[in-house]
């Protein structure tokens, strides 16, 4: 490489730094280095506050699980699932009827919220004119409904479903209806979100082929929004499973020792059964309540994991 002596002098580092250049470097360094000590401390404080918040949440969850496992340990066995509730022989009592009751109630909830929630979301996103004042009113109220305390839905269920117009009585179907009303806003909001995330170019592409709006919604938009809708439904179900307050008002408080039916007779659910056991004085029943809490927590963690798995598995970036 003997050609062009000017080349190496342009590329290689200059042999020594001249004073002016050195001064410029100091100024630049001072400008770019972390100068303000106060700012740094303030940043650290904020950071530790954030960590503290996270730690509080994690520690309380861990404490709750640990307490439930320790307190319920003597009774943690498969018998919990097969034995019927009893206060006379607490050492043999289980959750059989409550677990069946929960399955019935939640089965009903799913049957109700999927068509109603998805239907409402499709209407609001694809058909309703957002400028129409009525639709805006509906829109606002769905968001408000999602924040209404669950006990209010319990009172509503008691007045309109157990008694009043429907008069179903204190049956599992009444519990399903009440819980469905409670979680319906969650399903609608999640489904709307999922539908809105489907880009309009997909709709245009479908319509430009001569598809009707309905064909476009049912064959393109809904399949594309399916993972989001499913996640919303699962989260809603997880919430419904854990609810006790509204069910106390619509009959799930009965101490049933027989397998429940959907439209007839008393029923109980896991959370209300735990409540029934926990409020009694016998030591054995307290243990049983803690064991019930473990079942519930495991169930909820499982359901939420499925939701998270599905969301990650099918999540699409457009």
């Amino acid at each position, binding site marked *: 490489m003997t050609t062009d002596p000017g080349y190496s002098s342009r590329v290689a580092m200059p042999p020594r730094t001249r004073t002016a250049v050195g001064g410029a470097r100091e100024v630049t360094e001072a400008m770019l280095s972390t100068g303000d000590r106060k700012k740094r401390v303030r940043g650290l404080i904020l950071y530790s506050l954030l960590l503290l918040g996270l730690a509080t949440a994690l520690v309380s969850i861990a404490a709750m699980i640990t307490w439930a496992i320790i307190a319920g340990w003597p009774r943690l066995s498969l018998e919990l699932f097969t034995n019927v509730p009893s206060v006379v022989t607490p050492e043999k009592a289980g959750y059989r009827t409550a677990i069946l009751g929960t399955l019935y109630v939640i089965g009903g909830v799913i049957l109700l919220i999927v068509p109603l929630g998805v239907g409402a979301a499709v209407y609001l996103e694809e058909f309703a004119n957002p400028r129409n004042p009525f639709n805006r009113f509906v829109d606002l109220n769905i968001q408000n409904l999602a924040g209404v305390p669950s006990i209010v839905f319990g009172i509503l269920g008691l007045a309109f479903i157990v008694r009043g117009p429907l008069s179903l009585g204190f049956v599992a179907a009444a519990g399903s209806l009440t819980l469905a009303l409670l979680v319906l806003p969650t399903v609608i909001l999640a489904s709307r979100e999922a539908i809105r995330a489907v880009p309009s*170019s*997909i709709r*245009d*592409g479908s319509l430009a082929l*001569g598809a009707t709006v309905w064909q476009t919604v049912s064959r393109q938009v809904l*399949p594309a929004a399916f993972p989001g809708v499913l996640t919303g439904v699962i989260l809603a179900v997880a919430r419904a499973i854990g609810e006790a307050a509204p069910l106390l008002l619509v009959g799930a408080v009965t101490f049933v020792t027989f397998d429940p039916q959907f439209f007839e007779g008393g029923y109980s659910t896991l959370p209300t059964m735990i409540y029934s056991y926990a409020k009694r004085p016998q030591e054995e029943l307290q243990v049983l309540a803690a064991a019930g809490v473990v079942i519930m927590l495991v169930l909820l963690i499982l359901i939420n994991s499925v939701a998270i798995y599905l969301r990650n598995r099918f999540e699409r970036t457009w």
Partner: protein
Amino acid sequence: MGTDMTGDTVTTEEEANTTPSLGVSEALGDERILQTLGANTFELRGVNVYYGDMLAVRDVSLNIPHNEITAFIGPSGCGKSTLLRSLNRMNDLIPTARVTGDVLYHGVDMYGPKIDPVQVRTVIGMVFQKPNPFPKSIYDNIAFGPRILGMKGDLDEIVESSLHRAALWDEVKDRLKDNAFGMSGGQQQRLCIARAIAVQPDVILMDEPCSALDPVSTGKVEDLMHELKEEYTIVIVTHNMQQAARVSDLTAFFTVAAMDESSSRTGVLVEIDETRSIFSNPKDERTANYVTGKFG
């Protein structure tokens, strides 16, 4: 746009053979089509397009001949895409959009009371600016149109021939079940063209089909257009004047003009002529300025 008698006769027969399965005849009446075939696919007379109170395109009158490629060129905001979307009633999807004047398709008023916009779109297909494959397999992307329209015939055959005609078959024949999102942008756009062909339309509208593509993919799409014009009438909106010069038989130049009575700016048609004339010997000074790059 000279009319060649022999060429037209051949086209008419082809058209008569292919139409029954897709329903142009039901929608618009066989006789009418046969009478006018070989002349103009579209005749626009005094067409205005509004968005709410705003006039977007003013008083456009032009003819779009059968089995030719007509390009719409002009600066941004001149309403060329708006006009294109009014040719297959895609503008109906915008609640405030309104079209006045006559849009005649083979002599039939496309905005007449008996016309179903959904039927219109089965006959007049569209390819969009950004490739928009459905989030499904390559096969299902093509098969979607024939399925929803209940087209008779072997679906596998329709898919294969559509991909062949879109010059995509050799690239994708081994991965028809793969998701279309895994294709390159250029392949996706050709898939969208294949998808439009699969429902056997009469016209294909293309709204800046190459603006998101690299030059190689653009070249492929342009070659494809040359082949497709044997069977289809093509209208293309483009920002790329070289593209218009390369692919089109006719070019319509639009521009933005301030209206006298208000300050709002509206798209107007300046002139439409054979592409050669537009680029070498434009009649209007504004066209000359635009095609030579002097337009501000």
